[in-house]
Structures are given as structure tokens and as C-alpha cells.
């Protein structure tokens, strides 16, 4: 069976950051404003993408208002369904097949397994772990955000 056309997209310009993203490869970001990303520090923010190459702004240390970054200095995976390397927080191990969400204990854009951090209604699952990882290590994640709409009550 032949494959079809490639998927095309209109790139959304990201040219400002709200904090230094140097060394934040593998962490999740959300849109803080148009064209501006910020580390996701809790599981309630709407997933935008994953940092592949971090960077600081053109005015290091000055992020208020969000400051500009050099062209192409920040690389993100923001395409739904992409598989990307992500950084696990200190909140326990990850097993392939686990759903991942933002680690709210570390609150630094790293990820935790739902086995170690139970999601609550209204939060966002960011994707599915494809490989195992120990705390503070990396795993592959398929970026497929989904909203947690209902948690079944425990059986009586």
C-alpha cells in the first residue's frame, strides 16, 4: 500500500519566552501569550509542545515582558502525534505504556507517570510513554494531548 502525501501545517511563530529555557530539552511548554511559550509547571495548562533545543532570550535575565529569542534558537516539537524524547521528573519511574502528565511536584516542565501522580478532572495528559525511564531520566513519548474529563469513583 502506497503512502500518501506528507502532512502540511502552517507554522505558529514562537519568538518570545518568559524564562530562560537553556537546558530544558525534553520539558513541556504551554502558550503564555501569542507567540510566547513558558514551562508547564502544573497539569492543568493546555499542552503546546516539547522543547527539543532550549535557549535563553536575547536579553538574558530580563523576561518581563516576555523577551525575544534569536531566530531558530529555540526548537519545539508541537505537532500532535510526534514522538519525542522527554525528561522525567523525580516523582518515580515510568514504564512503557504509561500516560504522562506534567510533574506537579517538581513543577519544572518535567513529566510523571499517571501511576505515580494521579490525574484529576480538568487536567491534561500529554502523551504515551513508549520506553521505560527511571526518575530524572529520559523516555520517548508520543505527543497526544487529551483532557481528563471524568475519573470514576472507587468501587464501594
Amino acid at each position, binding site marked *: 500500500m502506497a503512502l500518501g502525501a506528507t502532512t502540511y501545517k502552517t507554522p505558529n511563530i514562537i519568538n518570545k519566552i518568559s524564562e530562560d529555557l537553556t537546558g530544558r530539552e525534553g520539558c513541556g511548554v504551554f502558550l503564555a501569550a501569542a507567540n510566547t511559550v513558558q514551562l508547564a509547571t502544573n497539569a492543568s495548562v493546555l499542552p503546546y509542545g516539547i522543547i*527539543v*533545543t532550549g535557549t535563553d532570550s536575547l536579553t538574558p535575565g530580563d523576561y518581563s515582558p516576555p523577551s525575544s529569542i534569536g531566530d531558530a534558537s529555540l526548537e519545539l516539537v508541537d505537532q500532535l502525534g510526534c514522538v519525542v524524547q522527554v525528561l522525567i521528573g523525580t516523582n518515580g519511574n515510568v514504564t512503557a505504556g504509561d500516560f504522562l502528565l506534567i510533574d506537579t511536584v517538581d513543577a519544572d516542565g518535567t513529566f510523571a507517570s499517571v501511576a505515580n501522580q494521579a490525574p484529576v478532572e480538568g487536567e491534561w495528559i500529554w502523551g504515551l510513554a513508549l520506553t521505560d525511564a527511571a526518575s530524572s531520566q529520559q523516555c520517548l513519548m508520543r505527543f497526544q494531548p487529551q483532557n481528563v474529563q471524568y475519573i470514576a469513583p472507587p468501587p464501594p
Partner: protein
Amino acid sequence: MALGPLTYKTPAQITSIAADLTGSEGCGLTLTTATQGRVEIANAPADLPYGIVVVGADSVAGGAGPIAAGALEIVDAYGCVVQVQAGAGAITVNMLVTVDSAGKFITSAGNVAVGEYYWGIALTAAPAGGQFLMRFQPYGRQV
């Protein structure tokens, strides 16, 4: 860190329309029920999201019917980012949006009931009637 290869898709053939889509660029489409290969404007949040009109067109004979090859262009790949039209009410960044009665996009707050659909998230802001970038990531409201 290098990025990987491109994503591939097998396109679904859309060969007819239920009504003239001229000037409907940026509006939401749904597959016409029981008519394979036909799309129409999604005019209610209950309509199942199919894609977004990028280049509108009328049919070969005008109105409902077959379209010329390549006349109609649609973004239908899940996760694509596309320019869409705002309906009544301003759009803010990160807003979850749905369609109004004209296939234009409005806030989902108060407009999506259980069983209806969110179409995506706004990546840029827009005034009422303006245009904004939306990431097409439809999902249904369950509770």
C-alpha cells in the same frame, strides 16, 4: 538534536459538496452523513469535525454536487495548524473553540454540551470576525 522524518497520510477523497463553499475559507467542515466523499459546513457543535476550508469552491454545476479536481483545498490532518475565521466574540490565546451556525469559530465555554465537539485551541488572538491560527485537535465532551 535533529528532528525526524515527515509524517505521511493517505488522503481521503472529497469529490462533492453539499453547498457552495466559495468564500468559506477558514470555516469548519463535517462529512455529510450517508454520502461518502461529500462535505458541508459544520453549523453546530454537534457536527463531527472533519477539517477546515483553506481554498473554497463551488461545485461544477453550482450548489450541491461534484467539484472539479483540486478546486477545494481542506486541512484535515489531525494536529495541523490552520488559519480560521472567528465568529461572534473575541478569541484569546489558548481558548478551546467550537463552531457556530456558520462554521466560524467561537469559544467553547457555554457552547459545547455533552456529546458535542471541541475543534481545537487558538494559538493567536483575534477580534470578533477576525482570523486566528488554530491547532486542529478535535475531541468530544464526555461529561
